[in-house]
């Protein structure tokens, strides 16, 4: 019995024989597949509801073809052809997203970017690296490390994700408070537009030449262009790393301490505030942290800067009733930060779990944390709702909420969607933003208009202008209406 497909391609009709022939002409036999086993492999990402489906014999979606471009010209030809033939094209790194962004929900052609994974240049004078976007994050970082540099972009997914994925969904890494988020790291890029036009911006420290088109493409989730190469900032590996931690009586006090640190212009590479529940889970053996909010800091850079920043972190933490817990909790975090076991062990027990990240300004931060936790707990079936804050700015914070529960009177998917709704709508009510770094994908699509307001029509018009046939990752960011009419008419 073949697996059931959750997102069936219902409306999109095109001549697969013609398209296959054209793909073979562009990419050659070795770089095109329509084997069933490959189509099965590419119909996935790591959204946790998809794991439930998977265990029940359902796959999230199924493409019609997979292609592996080896150069930008092939991508240009592909997009020209896809625009002419009206075929969906879905850029793909390694399918590690968690909100459905790379799922081929209308079938079509998956463009696996992994063969474009070269480090083109490392410029030691400018401290930049020019890199193709199909590269795996860990292999990029350890190559840079071996030459004495870091990009400073270390998301929890670094082992399993690609640079292209970071650009597509506007990623943030664990060390982002010092090194910035992905958009801060990009100096220039090369991309292919839906009509096949190849655009390439020039690296410069800053530009005042009108709106910055390359930055507009970052976070567009593969709907506006396929980004093929970028020049990024890199940094010398830190000379010194100081690990410190403090446990605070409440989330409010921990937030206050971190706000004062950031607003003093001190930028530890890593800051993470765990609420009392997560502290009990991760730092059980730390006696000083009992019933408190553990907060860990990594200050790094030159020895003088790292030590100086650490001294200010300590001073500000103590002034907010933080109790020093030393380096052990941070070492524990370093040792376990990539240890992702829960999705594997809890889902087969029919537990529904997920994480949702949102962002908010400081003056609403504690209220948002308290309200979202309460809203998720209020959903019948929720056994645990917890949170931590993991990315910080002078003006605000990103919260990362986790929930675990069971479908009491609903299906698992209905329960899952209800908790998501509770979290996102509470965030919107308080004035937060609905996604910090995991992007919109499918999970957040229904709230795009609430988030953007009137400006949503503006980006839809831009989409329509760049991609009139809606071939690039259809069904993402722009709801289904863009291009749907044309497809139905066909």
């Amino acid at each position, binding site marked *: *019995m*073949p*697996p059931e497909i959750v997102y069936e391609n219902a409306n999109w009709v095109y001549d697969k024989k013609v398209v296959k022939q054209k793909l073979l002409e562009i990419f050659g036999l070795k770089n095109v*597949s329509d*084997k*069933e*086993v*490959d189509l*099965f*492999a*590419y119909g*996935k990402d*790591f959204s946790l509801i998809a*794991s439930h489906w*998977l*265990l029940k*014999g359902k796959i999230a979606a199924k493409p019609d073809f*997979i292609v*592996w471009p080896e150069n930008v010209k092939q991508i240009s030809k592909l997009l020209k052809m896809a625009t002419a033939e009206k075929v969906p094209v879905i850029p*793909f790194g*390694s*399918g*590690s997203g968690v909100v459905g962004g790379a799922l081929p929900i209308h079938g079509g052609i998956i463009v*696996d970017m*992994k*063969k474009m*994974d070269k480090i083109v240049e490392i410029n030691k004078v400018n401290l930049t690296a020019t890199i193709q976007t199909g590269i*795996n*994050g*860990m*292999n990029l970082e350890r190559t840079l490390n*071996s030459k004495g540099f870091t990009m400073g972009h270390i998301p929890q997914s670094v*082992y*399993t994700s690609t640079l292209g994925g970071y650009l597509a969904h506007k990623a943030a890494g664990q060390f982002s408070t010092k090194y910035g988020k992905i958009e801060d790291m990009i100096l220039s890029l090369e991309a292919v537009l839906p009509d096949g036009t190849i655009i390439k911006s020039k690296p410069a420290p800053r530009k005042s030449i009108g709106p910055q088109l390359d930055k507009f493409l970052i976070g567009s989730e593969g709907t506006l262009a396929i980004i093929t190469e970028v020049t990024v900032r890199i940094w010398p590996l830190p000379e010194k790393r100081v690990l410190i931690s403090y446990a605070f009586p409440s989330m409010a006090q921990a937030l206050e301490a971190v706000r004062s640190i950031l607003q003093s212009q001190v930028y530890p590479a890593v800051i993470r505030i765990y609420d009392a*529940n997560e502290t*009990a*889970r991760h730092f*059980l053996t730390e006696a000083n942290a009992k019933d408190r909010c553990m907060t860990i800091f990594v200050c790094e850079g030159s020895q003088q800067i790292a030590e100086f920043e650490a001294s200010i972190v300590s001073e500000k933490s103590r002034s907010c009733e933080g109790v020093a817990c030393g380096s052990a909790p941070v070492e524990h975090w370093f040792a376990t930060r*990539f*240890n*992702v*076991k829960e*999705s*594997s*062990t809890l*889902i*087969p*027990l*029919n*537990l529904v779990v997920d994480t949702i990240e949102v962002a908010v300004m400081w003056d609403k931060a504690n209220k948002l944390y308290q309200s979202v936790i309460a809203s998720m707990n209020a959903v*019948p*079936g929720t*056994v*645990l709702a917890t949170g931590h804050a993991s990315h910080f700015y002078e003006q605000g914070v990103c919260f990362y909420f986790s929930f*675990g*529960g*069971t*479908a*009491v*009177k609903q299906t698992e998917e209905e329960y899952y969607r209800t908790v998501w709704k509770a979290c996102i709508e509470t965030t919107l009510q308080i004035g937060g933003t609905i996604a910090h770094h995991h992007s919109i994908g499918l999970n957040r699509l229904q709230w795009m208009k609430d988030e953007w307001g009137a400006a949503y029509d503006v980006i839809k018009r831009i989409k329509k202008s760049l991609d009139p046939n809606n071939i690039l990752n259809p069904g993402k960011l722009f709801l289904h209406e863009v291009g749907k009419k044309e497809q139905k008419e066909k």
Partner: protein
Amino acid sequence: MRIVDKVKRKKWMIQALAQASLAEKTSLTKGFLNKKQFYPTKKVQADITNLIYCMLCPNMCRFECPVVETSKIETHSPAIKSRIAYYLEMNLLDKSAETLQPLFEGCLHCSACKAWCPFDFAVGDLLEDVTVDLFQNLKKYPQKLQDFTIRIQTNNGLYQKEQLKKATKLLHALPKEGELYYFPGCVTMRNHPEVIEGIIQIAKKAGVKLVSLTDEHVCCGAPSLYLGDQEKAKELAKHNKELFKKSKAKAILCECPECAYTLKEKYPELGSKVKLPVLHVVEWLWDLFEKEKLSFRFSNKKIEKILESGPISYHDPCVLSRKLHIYDQTYCLLATIFQEQFKEITYSKEQTHCCGFGGLVNIANHQLADAIATKRLAEFQDEGIQTIITSCPTCLYGFQKNNPELTFELFDLVEIVSKLMDD
């Protein structure tokens, strides 16, 4: 970990569960009891629990998988291989040559994934059990693997006897009873008789009495295990165990890491536990060196040519370094021999990268095996190495095959040691 500590670590979860409503507790219990729906109804060899853990993991080991890092095909990524395997076990995918192909061409059984696995398993080990279930439908296998199965079943090894003449002749010179049973690997016998010659010379100079029952020699069974042909592997193991007994040897010497690993770790599972110590040749050489039975002549002219070629490095075979954890002795020996001219490369010891010829990848898709070998060789080139030494006949074969312009000087450690020994 003590039970008390385990319970303490789960305190957060226990507290949450205690606070859950009755409806929630009932639903959780129902969910827990329903987990059996995710298991096949009939008994299978595959470890379904770990397959589920692996396929639901976000592929956290993928960056180190040499296959997907070379092929760039998602189907070869570790969690997807487990997903395909699970769906085959659950009869949710057709058992066809096309569906089975990624399980064979996509895994080198190199255990690179294991180092990064929070559950501490290797995808290759999971797939070995899966193939035992799949082997019941051998006709659904890709044709190349069906042919390979028949080849092993017919030859009791990888090659026909006629293809092993040179090695057989060398081995015939050894007595049939003695101290150390020399168990040559199929690939060594076919492709590297000079290594056999080297081992015989070293033994002679060190005064070790090697023994071989060449005419009755059969494969260790590792390729049969990768195919899922457990019956053939059992038959070969039983036969070999009898030979060891017959020889009255006190220990077994293998120059092939795969043979050493299979004899040590797999024979007990196949019902033919070997009680004699099984030594890989590196362990044997180190033992001789420590007992001062190996002495090197550093002014040896034979080595001068090697030294002229620049820095010399070593490729750790996956099975030797990651499964048998043998590398420290190798590096000590090489540092002693080549001193400052020896350079350890970045991906070495347990962090080594596979040569591409592990598992059945070379049988299922030889172009992919070649591409992985080329990639590994490029790592040496990037670090300025032109002379590579290794301790595995398959790695040596893979590298030789992919060194058409003779960019690299390639040696087995045995060749180096035998060249350097005092006459």
